[in-house]
C-alpha cells in the first residue's frame, strides 16, 4: 500500500479521484485505475482490515509470555453472580498446597472480588474496566505485568460478568471455562451460543439448589453440545463442594497436558 495516500495496487481497489493529479500531489508514479464514480475529489481505498486482528495479536503475545514462564491461564466467564469468585476462593484454598494460584480479577468497578481472593493469600490484581463489558488482551497484558505470576503457577482470569461480550476476545488463555448456575435458564447455551461455542469446559454450578428450581441439567448439556459438540461438562456446587474433585482433576489434567 502506498504510504503517502493509502492507495493500493491490490485487487479490489476502487479509485475515484477525478483530478489529473492527486490534490496532495504526491510525486511517485504508480498507475491508478480509471475512476469508477463521479464524486469529485474523493477516493475510495480498500482496507480489508480484520477488526479482531489487533486483539488477537496481543493475545498471541500474552500466550507466548505465559508459555515462557510455564504459567497456565484459564479464562473464566459467566453471567454476573454465577459463582466465579466463590469457586476461585474455594479452589485456591483446596489446591493451595499443591499448585500456586494467581488471579486477574475483571470487574467494571470495585476491588471487592480482588479482596475476596486476596484473603486466600493468592496473588491477585484487579482490572476495573469502567464502562467496558469485557477484558481484552491489552488489559490482560497490563495485568500480567503487575501480577508477575510465579513460573509454573495456575492463573485464573475472572472475566467481567457477561455472557455476550467476552466471547469475542481472546486473552491469550490456554483454556476457556464457562460457568452457568442452575438459577439461570437451562436454555442459556441457545441464547448465548458464541460464549458456549468457544468453551473447553462448562461448569454447571449451584447444583445444591436443584431441588428448589426448575432446571433440567440434561437439557442444558444438550443445548451446550449443540453449540459445541466437544465441550466438557461438570456439575458442581462451589459452596457445598459437590463435584469439586472432578474440577480439580480437570485442572490437574489440563495443567499436565499443557506443560508437556
Amino acid at each position, binding site marked *: 500500500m502506498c504510504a503517502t495516500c493509502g492507495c493500493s495496487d491490490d485487487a479490489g481497489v476502487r479509485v475515484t479521484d477525478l483530478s489529473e493529479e492527486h490534490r496532495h500531489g504526491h510525486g511517485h508514479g504508480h498507475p491508478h485505475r480509471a475512476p469508477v464514480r463521479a464524486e469529485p475529489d474523493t477516493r475510495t*481505498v*480498500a482496507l480489508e482490515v480484520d*477488526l479482531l486482528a489487533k486483539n488477537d495479536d496481543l493475545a498471541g503475545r500474552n500466550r507466548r509470555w505465559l508459555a515462557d514462564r510455564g504459567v497456565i491461564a484459564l479464562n473464566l466467564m459467566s453471567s454476573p453472580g454465577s459463582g466465579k469468585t466463590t469457586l476461585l476462593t474455594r479452589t485456591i484454598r483446596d489446591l493451595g498446597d499443591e499448585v500456586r494460584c494467581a488471579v486477574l480479577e475483571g470487574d467494571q468497578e470495585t476491588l471487592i472480588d480482588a479482596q475476596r481472593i486476596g484473603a486466600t493469600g493468592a496473588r491477585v490484581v484487579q482490572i476495573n474496566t469502567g464502562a467496558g463489558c469485557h477484558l*481484552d488482551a491489552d488489559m490482560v497484558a497490563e495485568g500480567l505485568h503487575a501480577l508477575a505470576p510465579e513460573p509454573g503457577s495456575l492463573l485464573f482470569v475472572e472475566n467481567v460478568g457477561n455472557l*455476550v461480550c467476552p466471547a*469475542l476476545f481472546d486473552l491469550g488463555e490456554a483454556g476457556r471455562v464457562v460457568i452457568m448456575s442452575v438459577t439461570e435458564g437451562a436454555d442459556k447455551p441457545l441464547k448465548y*451460543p*458464541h460464549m458456549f461455542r468457544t468453551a473447553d469446559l462448562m461448569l454447571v454450578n449451584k447444583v445444591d439448589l436443584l431441588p428448589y428450581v426448575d432446571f433440567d441439567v440434561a437439557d442444558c448439556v444438550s443445548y451446550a453440545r449443540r453449540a459445541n459438540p466437544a465441550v466438557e461438562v461438570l456439575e458442581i456446587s462451589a459452596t457445598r463442594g459437590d463435584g469439586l474433585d472432578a474440577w480439580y482433576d480437570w485442572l490437574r489434567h489440563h495443567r499436565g497436558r499443557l506443560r508437556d
Partner: protein
Amino acid sequence: MHELSITQTVVTTVTQRMQDARVCRIRLEVGRLSGLVPDAVRFCFEMVAAGTTCEGAALEIDEPPGRAVCRTCGAAFETGEVLPLCDDCGSADVEVQGGRELRIREVEVV
C-alpha cells in the same frame, strides 16, 4: 457493549491509516453470526468519531449471512442464526460456514 470497543478499533484504524485525510464514508462487513449488532455499532460510531477525521462520515454496513447445510437432509440455506434449525426438515444437525466476518472493507476520503 463490545460494539463500543470494536467501533473504537474502526475509528483508530481508519484515522491512523488515512492520516490527515477527512473520511466521508466507511464500509464495514459485520457478518450476521459475528456477535455484533450493527445498530449498536451505528449508535457508538457517532460518539466515537466526534472530533476525529471520521466525524460525519457515512457508515455503511454489509451484513453477510451464514451458509448452512443440513447434515440430515442435505438442504442448503442462508441463515442469521448461530444454531439454526434446518428450513426443510427441522433438524438441528446443521453445519454453518461464514457469516462471522468483522472487517473494514473500504473507506472514502477527501
